Each structure stands twice: as structure tokens, then as C-alpha cells.
């Protein structure tokens, strides 16, 4: 299992590097959009097969589905306030409570599901990647000590990650999607243009983490104690 995972990651990395070089040499370094889409696919497809090969237990699937539904319902509940959404907060808390892999699943799946309700677009895969990465990061950094982590640290992490990772990826994606010949200035402009929205989004995330992290972490912990940790005995 461990070997398998390392293997797939290496192959994934190699194909991505190959794609970038193919883009530079065969497509004249001009087809940014095609290359970026290919790379997105090369991230999602191995991840999906890796996840399937693990044969996740029913408890894990239902737990992820519940977290996704909470996040989507949260987005729906606050739909009248643009950018002020609890989605990132729920994704981060999921990653902290259950680890990076489940954090990634909750993040990517939340975007897919909520866009089924709110409208898909060419931005869907980018949002899925950004949100998944946030869950993954939260799990990698905080999962091993989720009992002692302070809310303030998590909130600061949440705000930062929302602006840097989510904002960074989505602002770049905007340029990559709609500007066939992007320049550095376009990226800079896109970041400047997006920054106010990202800051509101980041502040919202921090607020929601401050308010929700403790109760949700406790609840997930409680359910794991009461019925046994599904990752140990499925």
C-alpha cells in the first residue's frame, strides 16, 4: 500500500513534468490553457484511482458525505453575502479532524456538489484543486496534534490559506482560462483585482473557524470515540 502510493505519486510527478516540457517544446510554450488542463487531469485521475484502490469503508464515505453536505448547505445559507462563506472553514476542520486525504476529498467534492446546485463552469476543476489542496494542507500540518491545536492558530492559517492558495489558484486560473497569451502583468492585475474579494473570503474563513472549529472537532472526536475510529477498524 505504502509502496503503491509512492509509486503513483512519482508517476504523477513525472507525467506532469513531461507535459510541461512537451508544452514548451512542441506547442511553442503558447498553449497554457491546454497544458494546465492536462496537468489538472493528471492530478485528479491518479488520485481517484488511488482512493478507489484503498476500498474506503462505508463509515468513511458517509462521514465525508455529511461534511460535504454541511459545507454545501453552509454555502447555500450564506448565499446572499458574496465571498462570505463557511466552505473553507468546514474543509479545513475536516482535514484537521480526519487527515489530509479526507480533507482533500471533502474539499474537491464540496466544490463539485455545490456547483451542481449553483452552476458548473470551466472554473470547476480549478476550484476543486484549490479547495482539495487546502484540505490536504490542513490535514498535513495539524492532523497529528488536533487535540491541542489552538483556534487562533487555525483561524490565522485559514485566512492565509484562503487568500494565498484559493485566491492564488483562482486568480491565476482566471487568466489562464480566458487569456490565450498571458503576460506577467496580467497575473499581477488579476491578483490585485481579486485581492479585496480574497480578503473578505479569508476574514470569513477565520471568523467561521473561530466559531465552529471547537464544536465540530469535538463532535467528530466524540463519534470516533463512541463507535470506534473507522480508519482502524472498518
Amino acid at each position, binding site marked *: 500500500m505504502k509502496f503503491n502510493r509512492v509509486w503513483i505519486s512519482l508517476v504523477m510527478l513525472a507525467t506532469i513534468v513531461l507535459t510541461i516540457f512537451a508544452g514548451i517544446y512542441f506547442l511553442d510554450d503558447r498553449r497554457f490553457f491546454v497544458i494546465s488542463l492536462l496537468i489538472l487531469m493528471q492530478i485528479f485521475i491518479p488520485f481517484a*484511482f488511488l482512493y478507489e484502490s484503498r*476500498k474506503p469503508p*462505508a463509515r468513511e464515505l458517509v462521514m465525508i458525505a455529511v461534511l460535504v453536505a*454541511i459545507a454545501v*448547505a453552509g454555502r447555500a445559507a450564506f448565499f446572499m453575502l458574496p465571498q462570505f462563506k463557511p466552505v473553507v472553514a468546514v474543509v479545513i476542520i475536516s482535514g484537521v479532524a480526519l487527515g489530509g486525504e479526507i480533507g482533500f476529498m471533502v474539499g474537491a*467534492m464540496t466544490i463539485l*456538489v455545490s456547483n451542481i446546485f449553483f452552476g458548473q*463552469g470551466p472554473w470547476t476543476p480549478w476550484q476543486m484543486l484549490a479547495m482539495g489542496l487546502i484540505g490536504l494542507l490542513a490535514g498535513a500540518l495539524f492532523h497529528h496534534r488536533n487535540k491541542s491545536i489552538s483556534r487562533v492558530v487555525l483561524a490565522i492559517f485559514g485566512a492565509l490559506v484562503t487568500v494565498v492558495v484559493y485566491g492564488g489558484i483562482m486568480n491565476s486560473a482566471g487568466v489562464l482560462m*480566458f*487569456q490565450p497569451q498571458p503576460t506577467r502583468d496580467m497575473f499581477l492585475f488579476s491578483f490585485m483585482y481579486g485581492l479585496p474579494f480574497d480578503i473578505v473570503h479569508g476574514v470569513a474563513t477565520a471568523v467561521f473557524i473561530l466559531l465552529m472549529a471547537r464544536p465540530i472537532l469535538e463532535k467528530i472526536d466524540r463519534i470516533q470515540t463512541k463507535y470506534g475510529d473507522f480508519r482502524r477498524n472498518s
Partner: protein
Amino acid sequence: MFILHPVMLVISFVCAGVYAFLLRGVRVLMRGLVLLLPMMLVAAAMNPLFNHRGVTILTYLPNGNPVTLEAVLYGLAVAGMLATVITWFVAVNAVMTADKIVFLFGRFWPALSLLLSMSLRFVPRMIRQGRVIVVAQKGLGRKPNALKVISILMTWALENSIETANSMTARGYGLRRRTAFHLYKFHRRDVFALGWMITMALVVGVGVALGVNRYRFFPSVQFHALSGASVIVFVSYFALGAVPIILRAKEVLVWKRINSAM
């Protein structure tokens, strides 16, 4: 999404527009486009502001960089492309219902597609339970705030999830050779439609690769005159984009005929 030839853009936009109109009506289509108007403006404005290539200089920016006619045209083409993509997605959102996505996923990734369909099911369930909680709290004489409700909802949902999972395991989740219900079969007409689309896409692809309909923006606008080859590419592109319209129109006609016969 990366063909910026004006004629191709117009063909694609018209096909997408007619199809989205047939599916959703004019209001949904207009709302989608109006919502995206600021994004289109930014995309269109970005080019003349940051792209200074092109030979026809219109004016100079305060920082001394030129604004060129070519960059303005290019920006307009980009905005047109954006509008086309958005219009296609208005149609996609109408056509790609959740069950189809789950079916497509389910072939390769049964666990992920199950996860997707469960999440979809849980969303309305959560919203309904949220309302129940609000009513119950009010009945107790409390004033529930959003966070309190989410907290209660979370406990309920997690506790419930255990029951769901146990039930799934009891009914054989994870056993091999379990299939998902679906109504889709691959008929001969599907073979025909798929073959048609692949052929047309190939013609367009080869045409674009050979550059028969190249449209150059920089340094000066330049394009090939209409030739036999480029007309073939345009017609094939239209034949590709019109497929969903023809299918939809046929369904509507058949439906009307059956209704009037009754």
C-alpha cells in the same frame, strides 16, 4: 475554447445560444450572460492595457505604453470566447443532471460516485433538518442562531451517518459485482451520433492544425481569404455545434406530434 477566429467564434456562439435558449429560455440565458458581464469587460480590457504588441497605435497610456488596435480587437475576441463558453455552460448545467454525472463516474470509480450521490442526497436533507431544528428550538422558547443550528445539525448528521453506514454494510456495500441503476443504453443511433461528432471534430482539428483558417492578431491583423478548405472547416464546425440543437428540436417535434395524436 482556444479558437479565436471571429467566424468560428460566431458559429460556436450562435449554436450555444440557440441550444441554451431551447433548453432554458431567454431569461436564464440573459441572466447568465449579464452576471458574467463584469468578467467579460475585465477580460476585454486586460489586453489593450497589458499587451502592447501590434502596429496600429491608437493612443498612449499614462505610463507611456501604447494601446494598439490589434490588442483591442484581440481583447474583444477573448470576451467573445468567454461569452461563448458561458453560454455552452448554461446548456451543460441544464443537460448534465446529477444522475448522469454519477453514472459516468460510476464506471471507473464506484466509491467516488457513491460518495457524490450520497452528498447530493444529504444536502436537501440537511436543509430540511435545519428547518426542523429551528422550529424545535423556537418551540422550546429559545432563539436559535445559525451557529447553534449548525452545531445541532452536525450532531444529528454524524449520529445518523453511523446508522446509514451500518445499513450499507449490512446490505453488502463493498462486495464485488454490484451495479448501479441507470437507464442509459448505447443504441445504434448513439453510434451514428458519436461517429458524426468525431468525424466533424477531426475535420475541424486537422483544419486548425494545418492553419487553413488562421487568424493572426499580432503584430497586425491578418487572415487567410476564404478558400474551399476554410469553408469546409467552417461548415464542419457548424455541423458539430448544431448536433445538440438538432437532437433537441427532434425531441420537441416528436413530443408535440405524440401529444397532438392523442
